[in-house]
């Protein structure tokens, strides 16, 4: 891992009305790194992720992406988002489009890639996520796991430099979580830079290069999975992880 930050966040603050969600976040993500953000619900994980591609507008602070400050109002949002893939908890496939059209819409409309080429790229990515047989399927009729894999393929079709995953398996039943995590593992092995908000501790432990623990709007602790899971420094981290393990046992 070279120390080559693709994203550098400095003193990021965000409030929803009276609710102070992010209280001065500092975070760097290096190229090719897989960062998992863990923490209790309401700790600000998803908000942080959504601030990175400006689905939420942070109140103050800086987010540098490729040396460009996203908090600068002159920045070209749409050009920027092309480079940042996002996968949502609720899949958000385009309901009015087939699986293939879900994947080709943005490349054709945004990057003006010719149709045949966009379709070839889409089929390549759909094949890698194991959905080659579902290319012409109605996206509403897929299972949750299939939908999420299409969503990943759709994001990959824009050839992003980084992928953000916002609790990608939280809406799936436990039996099909695996098929989505496998796709993500593959992606990580291919060297994709990934920031993953997740409750899948096993995945975080196995795949991530760095684990970030967030609590009440601040990053409380970060380090290698071995450090954070094996020997957490903060009592709150220990409490969270132990409670999590208990829940898993129950």
């Amino acid at each position, binding site marked *: 891992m070279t120390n080559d930050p693709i994203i550098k966040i400095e003193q990021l603050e965000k409030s929803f009305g009276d609710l102070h969600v992010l209280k001065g976040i500092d975070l760097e993500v290096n190229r090719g790194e897989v960062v998992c953000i863990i923490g209790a619900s309401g700790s600000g994980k998803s908000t942080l992720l959504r601030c990175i591609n400006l689905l939420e507008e942070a109140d103050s602070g800086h987010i540098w992406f490729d040396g460009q400050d996203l908090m600068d109002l002159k920045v070209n949002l749409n050009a920027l988002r092309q480079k940042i893939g996002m996968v949502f908890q609720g899949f958000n496939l385009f309901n009015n489009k087939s699986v293939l059209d879900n994947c080709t819409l943005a490349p054709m*409309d945004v990057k003006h890639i010719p149709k045949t080429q966009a379709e070839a790229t889409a089929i390549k990515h759909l094949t890698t996520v194991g959905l080659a047989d579902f290319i012409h399927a109605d996206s509403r*009729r897929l299972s949750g796991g299939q939908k999420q894999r299409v969503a990943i393929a759709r994001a990959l079709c824009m050839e992003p430099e980084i992928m953000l995953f916002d609790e990608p398996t939280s809406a799936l039943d436990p039996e099909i979580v695996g098929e989505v995590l496998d796709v993500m593992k593959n992606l990580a092995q291919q060297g994709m830079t990934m920031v993953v908000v997740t409750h899948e501790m096993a995945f975080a432990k196995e795949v991530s290069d760095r684990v970030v623990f967030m609590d009440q709007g601040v990053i409380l602790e970060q380090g290698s999975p071995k450090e954070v899971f094996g020997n957490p420094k903060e009592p709150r981290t220990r409490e969270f992880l132990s409670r999590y393990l208990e829940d898993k046992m129950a």
Partner: protein
Amino acid sequence: MAASTAPRKNFITRDHRYVYLGGSLIALLGLGMFYSAPSPYSFIPAQSVFGTALAAICWFFLGVSAMALLVKWAYWNNYSSTIMKRPLIVRVSRYLSYLDAAACALLVLDRFILKLAYIINAAIHADSNPTDTLSTMAYMAYNQRSLFAIGISYTVRLALFGTAIAFVLALLMVFLRIQEPDKRDNDFVKFLKIDANKFSRFYIFVIRGTPMMVQSLILYNAVFGLFKRTGMSVSDINRVWPLFLAGLVTISLNSTAYLAEVLRGGILAVDAGQMEAARSLGMTHWQAMRKVVFPQAIKNSLPAIGNEFIINIKDSSVLCVVGVSDLMFMTRSVAGIYYKGTECYLIAAIVYLFLTYLSSLLLKAITGKMTAPNNTKRHQGNQTVDLGLPSSN
């Protein structure tokens, strides 16, 4: 298809409760028809063997039902173990009820439908306006059929083109309505967006808050006055600003306000995640709206858009105040010719009812096809891709 014929077939082959009660009512209706006066078109005269046989079937069914009632009365608590509940008797009584219904249907055809046909035919060929309601309605509808036809054509065209134009305008209006200034917009764009939003709110506020009758009068007279001021002659103005055009513009502008709100509801009903997903892929707000949100919003709104068309068929009647030759205007003209208000407006009511019923059937067929989910099961199989690419597994 199979699903729609199956219940009908079941109805014939199934045993029912209340066979005696329903059958008795049908028998009474048939007998009532039989003992009413036949018309010259009648093919079942009162004294004929066939007519008597039909009446006998009805009487017989009434008799059987009366017997069943007596048995039920006598064996209130164990009726189900009486002879009336034997499967054979149940089935025979069911077949008997079909015979009863068939006899009744024949009698209704003979004594009601053919009589109606006779009355209408007689009224159509009458030399002067008959006095009874039905005959005079038939007489006026037939003799003034060309006026009614013009009225119907105007009404249908006003509703159809009015709704179509309003739909296009409503797309523009709702586009203005949903503008919200963004932190990243420059001051000029912010200003435009805020004003667009305010304009559409004001437009909808005014149009929804005033009657279409008033709108049509203001619009027609105001435009007429404008032309007048340029020094045009009245006949020239009538050529460039005909009444139909005035009516069409009124109905279009009016429906625009309502359809814009319908479409806004349709847009709000689209999950916010659709927009977020599109934006996260780098699509602009407008691209996301056009390719992802609008198609779904219009699909959501189709039933309400069809409803607006039906409303326009009826509400175009208020345009008769400016003199548009719609169905209502023509009806008033006919009523003026004969001095017969009630009967004329009854004709109009029947025609409007027929038009709206026909439209709702058509709309159901069209929107049902467009909103139905694809008739395919969950995809399991090998879909071949016709791109000339190597297939992969």
